[in-house]
């Protein structure tokens, strides 16, 4: 089942008059189906973060249509957008973005709390997910009291707890050491399989990308090429490196 569809979206920064116009995205179109684990790769400045912001409805495209959950996102007003974000999208950020005034537990249930869930319903959901993601022990601690890996797992819990249509992960391994990074990627795969969550992972790390089922490469605001994972992870990894070297990205 298709959950989102992007048609010819472009994003331009700066006004046309100022001549400083900068085109971040050019006429991009694609679809995402339920349960997919998609990677978006590209060099710095290729437009991948812009794309992520638009998909996350934090930013709006200059032109083009973006349909999710049967709704044209560009037509929503601010409040509807916020509601849309909280209902349909779960975010995982490079710097975790946990509120340091709250315990991990409070951080995780925050999206549900904002939706007005009952306390016991929230706790039931929380303990299920926290157990799966292995952070039950540290739920009562504050973000600055736990490791980066645990913070990022808490962030993943927060993204997952609302059962969003799509999880957007922006360089989630960027701040983690390689062990924690690998753990997190395994976790995302687990989430993808067990929770049937649709995940869109933005990264420039080839290793992280190799966990995806499909990768879109972006260059100068356009989709340059796409790659699908085959049976062999090694082959997929090599294929990604090949594309990245052509793109001029910084493959490992």
């Amino acid at each position: 089942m298709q959950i989102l569809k992007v048609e010819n979206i472009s994003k331009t920064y700066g006004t046309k008059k100022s001549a400083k116009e900068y085109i971040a995205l050019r006429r991009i179109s694609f679809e995402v189906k339920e349960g997919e684990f998609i990677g978006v790769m590209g060099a710095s400045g290729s437009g991948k973060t812009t794309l992520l912001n638009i998909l996350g409805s934090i930013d709006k495209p200059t032109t083009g249509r973006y349909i999710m959950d049967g709704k044209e996102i560009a037509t929503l007003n601010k409040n509807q957008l916020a509601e849309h974000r909280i209902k349909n999208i779960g975010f995982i950020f490079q710097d975790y973005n946990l509120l340091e005034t709250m315990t991990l537990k409070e951080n995780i249930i925050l999206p549900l709390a904002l939706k007005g869930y009952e306390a016991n319903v929230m706790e039931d959901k929380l303990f299920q997910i926290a157990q799966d993601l292995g952070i039950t022990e540290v739920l009562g601690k504050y973000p600055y009291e736990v490791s980066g890996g645990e913070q990022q797992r808490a962030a993943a819990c927060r993204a997952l707890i609302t059962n969003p249509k799509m999880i957007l992960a922006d360089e989630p391994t960027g701040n983690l050491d390689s062990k924690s990074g690998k753990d997190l990627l395994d976790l995302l795969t687990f989430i993808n399989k067990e929770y049937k969550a649709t995940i869109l992972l933005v990264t420039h790390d080839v290793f992280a990308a190799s966990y995806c089922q499909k990768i879109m490469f972006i260059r100068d605001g356009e989709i340059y090429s796409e790659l699908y994972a085959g049976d062999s992870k090694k082959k997929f990894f090599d294929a990604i490196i090949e594309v990245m070297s052509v793109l001029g990205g910084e493959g490992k």
Partner: protein
Amino acid sequence: MTLRTLAFRNIKQNFKKYIMYFFSLSFSIFTAYSFLALMQNEYVIMAFTYDARYRSMLTGFGIIIMVFVMFFLLSSNNSFIKARKKEISTYALFGMTNGKIGKLLFLETMIVGSIALVIGIGVGIFFSKLIAMILLDISLASFTGSIAFTMDPKAIYITVILFIFIFCVMGLSGLRVINKFELVDLFKADKVSEGKSEGSMILLILSLVSIGAGYYLAASGDPQMVVISSIPVLVLVIFGTYLFFWGGLPKVLNLIKRNKNNYYKGANLIATSAFSHRMKSIGSVMATIAVLSAVATTAIATGFTLYKNIENNTYDIIGYDMYFYGGQEELLDKVYAAFEKHDTKMTESYTTQRYKSVPKIETVTIGNAEYISSERDYFRVYSQSDYNKLVALSKSHLKPVHINHGEAMYTYPYMHQDIESAMLGQLLTFPDKEVSITAALRSGIVSFGALHTLILSDDDFEALLKKGHISEVDEKGSAYDQVTVLNYENPLKSGELAHELTQILSGNTGSFRVAYNHYIEALETFGLVCFIGFFMSAVFMLMTASLLYFKQIMAAEEERHQYRMLRKIGIAGQLEKKIIVKRLLPVFLIPLLVGIVHSMFAMKAADTIVFSNMIPVDNSYFTVLAFSAVMYGAYGIVYGIFYFITKAQYARIVR
């Protein structure tokens, strides 16, 4: 780039942050200058400073204001520096020594300070006339002189010296703040906890017990008890307040957090956790503000209540616009002439006999002292109708009475709570008649020189008078002086008439009272107390409120990224506003409420000591509270204004 150009550039770029800082500096300077200029004003010198009592009152007040201004400036300066932590750490990162940074900040303070000095003094000069007029107007009823628009060089000179000294202290204290910065904080500034405080049940209970004990002592009905325990009350309440904000309130927040169904509602979760996270850093400030608010509201409420009751009080003591006894034959004509001369209409007058009687009565002792005995004491006696006539003429609160046959009402001029119970039921034995005291009333307006007064029913009075048990002549057979009471138009504004009446009566009569004289004397004392109350409250109010503003703006800078994050999760404008309200409102509301509750108990103590004598209604505390409520309301409005300014600024920063 020299330090000086950097300093100028910083001010320009931090202009928005500097506005409030600048405002509070200017306001402090304005306060100091206004006060100093007031002390130099010739009329104020004439009216007050010749009297040692008033002078020491004003000086003490001046010192309190200056100490507070200093405390306020130091603490807002430190908050301001902390709000600029990132910028300052960046200088340090690029190799600027702390000494140099301190110098840079000192330069900035001096630049902003000099502008604030000019503006503060300028505004002070502009308003000096107004302030002097307010003081003289509320404390001198008859003040008619015109106050010149003055620029006082001495006040300017002292203000400038004083503030340059304060700026230097601020520079040093700023340096201390900078020295405490850890460079590494620059990179994790937002991640580090400011020190959340879990609070403790023991502290919570201890603080409530301490405050409660203070309240209990303050609410005691015995004036002497209240006076004796005033210091313990202050210590208990202040100690309890600090404990409450240090350990009690965090515990309360913790308890709130336990109620998950309420706490886990989106906005509550964010706001409560953010507030409890700041508790440690803001606890002392909130406690200080609560205590200062209590002082300020009490001062202003006391002043206002006193001021509003001076007139009532005058009539409750004197009773009429004027009375005198003795020498009527010659004096009345002169008095009437004086009224004519000053073109003042006399509205009412009444002359009556001062009767006396010495019935037998059991000796009454109160405490260890003999209060009344037949051997030493006599009673002034009125018939019911004569008494009612006097009461009707008087401007006091007294009401006409009805006395039954065989009964009597006893009135006494002293304030002592045991007299009434001691005298009620006492039997007065006349040679052929017994009368019992069935009512007692504290009032001096019918005594006219006597310590004990009786009001009898008309027939009892007639009967006793006939038999000579009540007499109008003394042992030697000469008649007692009659008493004349008078009311006239504009009694409290006719200063010259009162002066002339005083001259006519003085020395030529048994005794006399003119309400105007009493009123003016009370006005001078209470007017000054009242003015000091107003001035101090205004200063405390504005400064504590802006202190909270600074603390919250500083917090906003640090909480900014949280809101950015919340927006990504999906928080819309409406909810964000709600969160900000829930986050900021307690910061303003809690100290204000604590301060007002403290003040209500302080007013209860003030009522016991002072007002219950001044305001002659059954429960004077309610009257006092009604007057106080006006001032609490005013205080609340000012805090409300600051709250809205803070909220707007906070919302702007986190947007």
